[in-house]
């Protein structure tokens, strides 16, 4: 693009579309993290004045890292950020804000006990003066709020507001402080459908006034509803930038999840011998299960699923679409608001983890260090975390640690847990070994059902292979396995059947052999009917 200095002054929405430099641009941005992860690999994109530019990509595609670079949170290892065509070095969010770049994060940063107006001016002082007239500020906020149809009472305290209203406050804060480039990080996850509509009309108002909105999302319908152009990121690279009017869901989905080696992924359904003639009986049945999320939103909506003995059912989907709640409701860690869950034909007590454990539900949680283990306890103690209650050596009030340690030594050998001994504290182990402790505990009890949530996330290649083989082995021995993962390769490689979650609903179930990346990608992005 031709960058002309004279375009800097009179930049209107029309002019932006034609000749003036983009409002903000990333040019060849590379960001590496410790451990060799390249979160952004020569990413380039530019957003024009007066447009909604969507950044589209799966989890881990590099969207958030890119935005953290645009807002001065990270510094790029290579490449540069340009604002209005001029290279700019941002050393802090403050400098980015001075350049007009603001970001509204998924996790809002508001002080609960202060009013809307106080939150908006908190830590912000206009040139000159420490004074703060709440009446003036409130009037100004009212003015901005009504211009962008974001009704909120400036005198209300944050704790009194709904999540959608709180988000509005965060956006108002950016506008009040003079944002010309506003980055919205997955803003619709916490909103109800009508709130989403409201947000979109506010966003349209903003870009009509010449601002730039960068809209991070993985949901295609929203991108089609609001964006003018979109840049697709995949595995840290910018794939391409497209005009929304000139593309379709199929193309975007392919760019988002497409995989160069799709044909090389070994598929279990085809590589393993066919299942026995008789249909194995179901170990897990979900019958129209509904669950509330952490913020009172509907996280699962009437989900029905079946996992049969010896089968791996993969749950594909972008995280935040109900996966965590699905795993937790089956494990009894979250009550169901409707429907029934049956294990081996018997109904589970809703929200009773002990009942689930008793009926043979093993759960490998996503947050292995925070939930899966008690980090300051020993390996042996973590291995009896669930069995101490009913296993014979521990039936009385006294725990027989010597027996537990002997058992632990055997399990450490069987599950290849590399630790100096059973008394080693779990927090001293590497991630892979922590996961092996979880696996050893969950799978050594011969469970009926294994719920595995992102079981290989963050593990090295060897540990990943090991975890996968242990899961397949559990299925081979007759357990049902529910595998929740954001890694499509993993889902396709391990599963017999695949179900896709989107917006808390199962939007498709298919045999793994019939699955294509493109089809899965469309389902995951909510683009399939």
């Amino acid at each position, binding site marked *: 693009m031709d960058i002309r200095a004279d375009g800097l002054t009179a930049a209107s929405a029309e002019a932006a579309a034609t000749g003036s430099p983009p409002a903000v641009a990333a040019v060849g941005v590379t960001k590496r*993290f*410790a*451990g060799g*992860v390249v*979160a952004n690999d020569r990413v380039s994109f530019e957003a024009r004045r007066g447009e909604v530019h969507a950044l589209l990509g799966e*989890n*881990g595609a*590099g*969207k*958030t*890292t890119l935005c*953290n670079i645009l807002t001065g*949170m*990270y510094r790029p290892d290579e490449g540069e950020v340009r604002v209005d065509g001029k290279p700019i070095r941002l050393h802090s969010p403050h400098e980015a804000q001075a350049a007009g770049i603001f970001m509204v994060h998924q996790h809002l940063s508001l002080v609960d006990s202060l009013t809307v107006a106080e939150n908006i001016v908190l830590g912000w002082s206009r040139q000159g003066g420490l004074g703060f007239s709440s009446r003036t500020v409130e009037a100004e906020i009212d003015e901005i709020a009504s211009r962008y149809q974001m009704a909120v009472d400036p005198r209300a305290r944050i704790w009194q507001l709904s999540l959608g209203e709180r988000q509005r406050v965060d956006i108002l804060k950016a506008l009040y402080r003079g944002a010309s480039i506003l980055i919205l990080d997955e803003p619709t996850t916490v909103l109800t459908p009508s709130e989403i509509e409201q947000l979109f009309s506010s966003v349209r108002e903003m870009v009509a006034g010449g601002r730039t909105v960068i809209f991070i999302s993985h949901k295609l319908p929203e991108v089609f509803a609001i964006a003018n152009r979109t840049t697709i990121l995949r595995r840290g690279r910018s794939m391409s930038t497209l005009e929304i009017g000139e593309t379709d869901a199929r193309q975007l989905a392919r760019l988002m999840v497409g995989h160069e080696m799709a044909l090389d992924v070994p598929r279990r359904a085809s590589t393993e011998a066919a299942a026995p003639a008789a249909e194995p009986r179901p170990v897990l049945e979900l019958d129209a299960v509904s669950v509330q999320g952490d913020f009172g939103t509907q996280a699962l909506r009437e989900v029905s699923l079946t996992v049969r003995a010896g089968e791996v059912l993969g749950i594909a989907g972008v*995280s935040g679409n109900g996966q965590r709640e699905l795993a937790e409701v089956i*494990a*009894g*860690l979250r009550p169901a608001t409707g429907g029934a869950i049956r294990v081996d034909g018997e109904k589970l007590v809703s929200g*009773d*983890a*002990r009942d*689930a*454990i008793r009926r043979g539900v093993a*759960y490998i*949680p996503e*947050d292995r260090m*925070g*939930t*899966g*283990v*008690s*980090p*300051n*306890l020993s390996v042996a*103690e973590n291995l009896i*975390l*669930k069995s*101490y*209650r009913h296993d014979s050596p*521990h039936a009385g*009030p*006294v*725990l027989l*640690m010597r027996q537990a340690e002997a058992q632990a030594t055997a399990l450490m050998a069987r599950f290849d847990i590399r630790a100096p001994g059973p008394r080693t504290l779990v*927090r*001293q182990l590497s*991630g892979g070994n922590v996961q092996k402790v979880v696996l050893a505990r969950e799978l050594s009890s011969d469970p009926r059902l294994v719920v595995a949530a992102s079981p290989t*996330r*963050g*593990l*090295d290649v060897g540990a990943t292979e090991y975890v996968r083989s242990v899961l397949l082995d559990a299925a081979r021995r007759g357990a049902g396995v529910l595998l929740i993962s954001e890694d499509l390769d993993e889902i396709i490689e391990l599963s017999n059947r695949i179900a896709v979650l989107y917006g808390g609903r199962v939007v498709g179930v298919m045999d793994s052999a019939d699955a294509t990346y493109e089809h899965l990608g469309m389902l995951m992005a909510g683009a399939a009917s």
Partner: protein
Amino acid sequence: MISIERSLVTPRWQRIALPIASLAIAAILAGIVLAASGHDPLATYQQIYEASFTSTGALTATFIYATPLLFTGLCVALAFRMRVWNIGGEGQLYMGAVGAAGVGLALGGWPQPLLIAMMMVGGAVAGTLWAMIPGLLRAYLHTNEILTSLMLNYVAGLLMYYLIYDSASFWRDTTSASALVFPQGKYLLPAADWPGIVIGSFTLPFGFAAGIVLAVLLLALIRFTRFGFEMRVMGDSPAAATYAGMSTRRKIVTVMALSGGLAGLGGASQIGDFGHVLDPRGLQQAGYGYTGIVVAALALYNPLAVVIVSILIGALTNAGFALQGPLFPIGLVGTMEGIILFSVLGGEFLGRYRIRFGRAPAPAIAADEESGIP
């Protein structure tokens, strides 16, 4: 740029060396304070040592101060182990004293062993019930137990005052001549005196001996039982405890109850071992419940270490009273206690964290989606 980060591994030697080094630093810091206030630090330490341990009757006096601290220290150590912040040991001790005095007065004619046992039960039950109020509120209504247990200290203190000064209660002496001049509690009969264990010139209070037994039992409870296992898991990782199907609510109530029972026993010991009368003013001025928090913290919440620390703090308190006078103001003892606490907890913090100089490897905001990758 200076940043503080968690160090993951604590070497074993550090667990021993840290408190010792911290105490040494505390001695140096307190020495500076002493020197600045015109005392010779070494001579003062010598005096303190003598007044605490070697002078005539000093050791016995030290244990008189150590006994209530042992109980309130155990009370706090148990609760804080599970991250239940019971700072109501003070009020639970008052209630224990009320309970034990009431039982001792009511059952005055009973044979001594039975009477002592019933006083202990009375004190423990009263402390337990008092602690269960914040326990139940925390478990079922999610109120902050720090606030509720703290506020209940004042309620218990005023209740004690009411019983002795503002009412003709069962606890109040309304007959003797001196009580007509100034309100006071009824004295218990000699049968209700707890017998000390006499070793030469030294008398070990019965309560302290009982406290040592309890400390051992408590350690065994925490280390070797299912109950203690659940406590440790909940204290370390509430999410893991829920995940393993442990019932957190019931455990919170139970631990609060046990914790309050220990403080209540401390109150019973105040009546049986030392006071033989419910003395609201004396109990409230001593502030054993609050000092118990210091004791437990210095002992790093280990019950056996609480025994040792209670003796040390008891010794310091005793020395403070013994040396008290124009040359050695009582405030100096409090200052030294504060310096010791500050040094030990500071040392503990530095042991758990490392201070890094230079740029932090990644900003704190890194908790976004991409950081899920190693």
